[in-house]
């Protein structure tokens, strides 16, 4: 199981409103008919976080692999973010990826 906070991309102290808003935004981008797996993942994460009691339940009652998910995130973010710039080549590759995806879809 992934850390539901990471799946939805919200901070651990996020409130009900913010979590719901984020969930709805994700579902709008990945509706169940187009991305059923992602939708299921978002839905499960939202179910685990949708209110204060559920968040406590997730924290207390589940031996969560989410902790591992958080650990790997911490490892990834050990460096200071946003200080460097990407290379021209990387950006071009990224743009080309989007272009190719558009014409392939």
């Amino acid at each position, binding site marked *: 199981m992934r850390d539901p906070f990471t799946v939805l991309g919200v901070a651990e102290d996020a409130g009900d409103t913010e979590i719901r808003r984020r969930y709805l935004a994700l579902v709008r981008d990945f509706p169940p008919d187009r991305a059923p797996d992602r939708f299921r993942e978002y839905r499960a994460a939202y179910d685990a976080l949708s209110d204060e009691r559920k968040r406590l339940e997730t924290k207390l009652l589940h031996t969560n692999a989410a902790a591992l998910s958080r650990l790997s995130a911490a*490892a990834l973010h050990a460096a200071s973010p946003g200080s460097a710039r990407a290379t021209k080549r990387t950006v071009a590759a990224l743009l080309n990826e989007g*272009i190719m995806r558009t014409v392939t879809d």
Partner: protein
Amino acid sequence: MNKPLRCAPAPSVPIGIQIARAGEALRQERFKEAIELFKPLIRQDPRPEWKASLADAYRGRARAMAAKKMFKEAAMVLENTIAPDGTVRDPRLYLTCLIRDGQQPKAAAYLLRCFGGDGVLPATERAALEDLAASLLVAVPQLPEASRAAPSEPSRWRELAAASREALAGWINGASAEEMDRQLNRISLRSAFRPLRLLLKSLTSIPRDDERTRHLLETIHPGSPFYPFRQAVEATVLGERVLDAYAWEQLTPAQQAFVAETRGLPVAASQFLARLSEAAQGGPAVLFGYLTKQPDLPRAEVRNACLNLLPQIPDRLPQFEKSFGPLSDLERHRVKALAAEARNDWEVAERSWRAAAAAIADGGTDRQAMLSQGVIYRHLAHLAIMHPEIEGEDIFGDPVIFYLERCYTVDPEHIPTLLELIGRYRKELQLKDWHRLVDEAVQRFPDDSQVLLQATESAVARKAYKMAAGFARRLLKINSINPGVRRQMIELQVAHARKQMRAKRPDLAAKELSAAAEWERPDAPSALLRIARGLVSLQTGAKEQAEVWLREGVELAGGGVAGWFQAQLEAELMNATGGDAGWLRQELVRARETPPTEESVMTIVSAVGRPEAVENKRVVAGLLLGLRAWLLQAASFNWSEAEFQALAETLARFDAFDLLQEYARAARRRDPANPAWRFYDIVARTKGNADRLSMAETDDLFEMAEAAARREDFHAAKRIERFLDGNGRVSAGRGRAAVALPDTIDDDEMAALFMAMMDEMPKGSADSLRGLVNELGRDATVAQMVEKLRSSPIGPGMPEPLLRLLSEAMVAKAMGGGRSRHGGKTRRSQLFDA
């Protein structure tokens, strides 16, 4: 080398035939042939419709090639269709072919040319291609040259493209935030280059406002060519929240490179992820060992990850404490509880969870602490439902209620717990607690529809009509339809009216029913209310109105026998069968001339299942007896098991065992293999009394119960067990003491009993008797049988020698002695002698 065309145009072929052939080839999607046929025609006479057909043929040919991934060739074929304004027949296909062939600069130049003015591209096509054009114009190494005859629109596009490219280059080269702002302001937010502006703005905004950034980025939708860029930027700027090992793996190599470059991630980070994944595959112990040896990782996160592994490897607790220091009380009990759950040790799990809740309580009484305790107690209540081992040392009564009560104490605002506790009180028949808690709930949550529904039901159960009506009205304000509450209120008032009618006060009953009518929705009229009003009106002398209501009610109740049966039943319940109500019976008799249908029979089953009918068993039994012949016609219907079940329960409940037997036998004839029919056949034969079971039937039922349990049909297994226990619903003897044989048994009865027992001695019993004889010897087995029979229902009525004789005969039969006719007679005579 090209293959010769199947239908090459001969110069002598008339033009009409050539056109027909070309058109046919196009229709049949033989595009190459169509092209070759149209070309000479157009050379002779360049008619617009032929040119259009030729372009269609080219497009078809290009599509076929693109489907075979021959993108270069497909693009070349489409270039044959270039119009004077520079557009091709299918711009999107053309661009796809160019891009997939790696000719991005050519695609960009084409698009720049296409946006050269109104009408070059249809509006919908243009809108669909704008995002692609913007991304291409940013991505290509060089901006395409301006067309000589460039109208104003391409130059605007060029300007925006140039500004976007400069801004992107500025960011790559490390331009300052101010410089970036200046550059980004040149990109119109209303242009197709907006996504790039948002992306670069998100990357350079300082101080960063994550929420605003997210809002901005979310406007770049998944179909946009800038979407992969958006994902990479999100991972970069919102990384702490959205990026973990899994999310990292989901990124494409280009996105990973972007994130690594912009976040300055060390190579070790991605290597760590790979090693972490390997260790995780080795199991919790391996992973635990790996994590504790990672000094460079954030300590708190490593501790948290290891703590969450402990329930799977509780033996590593000392190692954990050595590495990270002692666990808190809560953590220790939580780990123990989760570990116990993992090994299904529910007693330890319960003890540990309770200790964890106590540790939280010791730590403080703030909201979080109270809610956390509530979470644990609710969890314990749910565990107690599933695992009977959870019963607590200090719990007297239902452990589920005990834990729900505790949960309610620490978290009284949690409505689901409150409703669960109310439901549990009700189920366990703790009626005082049920009503008390409902009263509390409705005061605390006066506008909650679930609570109001409970309050209505509680008031109905207390016969507090006014209170129930008040709750129901409040509930209907929240949900004006709510058919359940409306029906409940109508039933409640009809019940009152019945009482008034039985007390010979039809005037009061009429008042009651007028009030009940306010609960009726015009689009959902109540059959029960119409019938009741009709019956009351008959008594008050309003005969015409009575007949109208009764006929309406009967129709609503299903019409025919089903409808008139319900009217007759209600008349009986109201004690309103005399005088003018006689015609109801006549209507029912007349309706019986129509043969039954499955639906009409099931409607009757449903009607007699109502509590007021069940409470008046004698009345219903009498009515069913009147319908016997009519119901018999339905015995041979192809009833489903569920329908049959409902029917059989009803027939047994009202002692209609002869009907039940007919139904069961008909069902067995249709489907001899289904044990359900056999069960009800036995129920019918024994008149629902397990004490009348023969040994063979008993064994059969045990086998049926076991088979049902094996196929996980626990309802059937329970039903059979309940019947065998003598307290099944099918049993007419429910609640009665076990009936032994009569005190005095005459010889014939005893002989018949003896013969029946011998005849029906099943194979299973014979086997077990043989086993006993082999184990204990013949005499000891006979002695044991005597004891068994003595304690059976027939025992008290049998003298000792008779019991012994019977036992000996059974043992003899089991041991293969059989029973010849003569042998039977011999034993019979022995029996009489005895």
